[in-house]
């Protein structure tokens, strides 16, 4: 197993730092899959994280100027590591002005991702800062847990309102209730509802638009054409999970969508430049 990448472009460094920073706000640990073309940050839905799962994909060519990866074997040409994104984020944040940043898989006292940056200085010798981030190598037999999630058989798909607005609403609702109902229909309407013994609050969003999933929508499990456009599909979720998702978003994505499987799962998809982030929040009774 070998991995070595070099980032020289400031914009690319900035880009990957922001992605990792967003991931670090969503989860404490996750799996990093390195393939020949892509980097994937994966969180598989387990009871421990409340059933929430995440899949983030970015293309390595848009980050690294040089990229060499040799996986576990030639048939399984990828590397799977368990990482703490917070550590990676911290290491990258302080080297934004570096001339070059190298990321390598190394073995120090344990397997590590070593991030080494050459910092500009006034003197002739440049300053090198090295961060060794400990990682765990995931054995091949467990790789099936970190496969790309399939598109759920959703009932409604709707574009999200501006994330900042959603975050403000959810932040305030969190003070009143632990659970929130997200509902949306095929007429571009979405409601966020909370209900307690004393009060119920609903925020209505209109004219959001519904994404079209194309001709193969029926194979992918898109909404059936006979569905009543006014009918709401809803799911009741833990409000903290939704808040966590909204808190982590630093950049307004070019596309933000929400797929709801009635009373089963909320599937959030964000697309920005070459990065796609999918977040699944299971519904609770």
């Amino acid at each position, binding site marked *: 197993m070998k991995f070595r990448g070099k980032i020289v472009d400031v914009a690319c460094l900035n880009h990957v730092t922001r992605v990792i920073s967003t991931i670090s706000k969503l989860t404490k640990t996750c799996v990093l899959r390195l393939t020949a073309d892509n980097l994937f940050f994966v969180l598989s839905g387990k009871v421990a994280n409340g059933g929430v799962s995440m899949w983030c994909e970015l293309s390595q060519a848009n980050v690294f100027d040089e990229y060499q990866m040799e996986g576990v074997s030639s048939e399984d040409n990828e590397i799977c590591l368990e990482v703490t994104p917070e550590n990676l984020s*911290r290491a990258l944040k302080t080297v934004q002005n570096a001339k070059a940043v190298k990321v390598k*898989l*190394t073995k*120090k*006292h344990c397997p590590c991702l070593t991030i080494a940056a050459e910092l500009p200085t006034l003197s002739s*010798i440049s*300053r090198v800062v*090295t961060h*060794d981030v400990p990682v765990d*190598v995931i054995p091949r037999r467990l790789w099936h847990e970190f496969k790309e999630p399939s598109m759920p058989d959703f009932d409604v798909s709707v574009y999200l309102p501006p994330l900042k607005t959603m975050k403000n609403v959810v932040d305030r609702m969190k003070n009143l209730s632990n659970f929130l109902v997200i509902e949306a229909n095929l007429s571009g309407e979405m409601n966020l509802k909370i209900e307690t013994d004393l009060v119920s609050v609903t925020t209505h969003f209109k004219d959001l638009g519904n994404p079209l999933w194309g001709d193969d929508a029926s194979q992918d499990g898109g909404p059936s054409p006979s569905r009543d456009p006014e009918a709401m599909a809803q799911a009741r979720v833990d409000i903290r999970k939704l808040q966590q998702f909204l808190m982590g978003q630093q950049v307004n994505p070019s596309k933000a969508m929400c797929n709801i499987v009635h009373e089963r799962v909320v599937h959030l998809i964000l697309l920005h430049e070459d990065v796609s982030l999918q977040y699944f929040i299971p519904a609770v009774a």
Partner: protein
Amino acid sequence: MDCVVTGGNVKVLAKAIHSLSRIGDELYVEPQDDGLALRSVNSSRSAYACFLFAPLFFSRYTVPGGHTFRCKMAIKSVQAVFRSLASLEKTVEKCHIELDEQKNRLTFTLHCKHGLLKTHNLSFQDSESLQAVFDKDSYANVFRSHPRLLVDTVVHFPPSLEEVTVSVSDERMWVRNHVEEEDQSKAMLTELCLASDEFDHFAVQTHNSVTFCLKELRGLLVFAESTGLPISMYFDEPGSPVVLSVTDSVLEGNFVLATLSDDPNKRKNNSRRAHTPPPPPDDFMNDDIDAYLIAMDTSIAPGPSATGPPTTPLAASTCSKQPAAANHRTRLYSEEEEEEEEEETADSAGPPNKKFCSLFFGSVLPPSSQMTTQPVTSQEVLASDSEDDEQ
């Protein structure tokens, strides 16, 4: 005591007080003939700071005649006087500090714009003398740099980080975070290498590594950066304190921090290593991919950086191996002390604590009131950092 600080110096005084607050909870005030000394020490006596403001810093400076006056007060109260630095600059024209010995009060009067007077009466307690014994000019390794260099170095370490290890060779300085042995498997290791020509002055006599607490230093860095004064750093053998100073014509600030000491076996290794050739030049950025076939088997690769200082993290971890009962923080001691002498005093029947403290601080009060009472279990007399232990 009666002194007046005017103009921009009010802000300097305020910043000094804020940086002292990063060390300890109490401010020791001692007006001396050579200036006003403001000092602070942390509860485990492992960090000490002193700012000495010369009489010329003040537009008026009079000391109480005849007797020496010393007091201490809660530093938070003094900080409250100088709370907002931005507004100090804009509105305060002068600050008058006056002692009222009968009422045990120190009065701070801020003369502000538009004839506004803000008077703060702070009560104080009598205190013992607090004076660290150190002789930085005799230390083997001396460095001086613009504060920006140290600030840029420290930024790479998380704010919560406790300890850093600084190692030097003839041309380089390495700064890395110090990780306790138990945490080593999961901790992130960060290492930064500075070249000698980034410093204004870089004089190394012995290739040493010292480990000290970073948190307490940040107060000095903030002060130095805002005043633009160069920081000088002095250190010697591990165990001997590291001293950081800022100086100009009217003030001198010294921050003295304890360092982790070696056990005697380790010390021998250190002196041997001092004679080994310096590590190969940093060719990290020109590496060849073939050289990076990582060993996924049991072989152990070199320390944090292939070109790191002689002290690898494995070796450094033995440094922190101490008897389980004892706190590994060493105490500050006068640099005249020999390792052998400590061993003798510790083994002797007498109360070692008393001896340790009187060597370091010119203390006149009996040991029980202020000093730690932790039993000594090794030749390093260790200070307790727990308030509970102090009587």
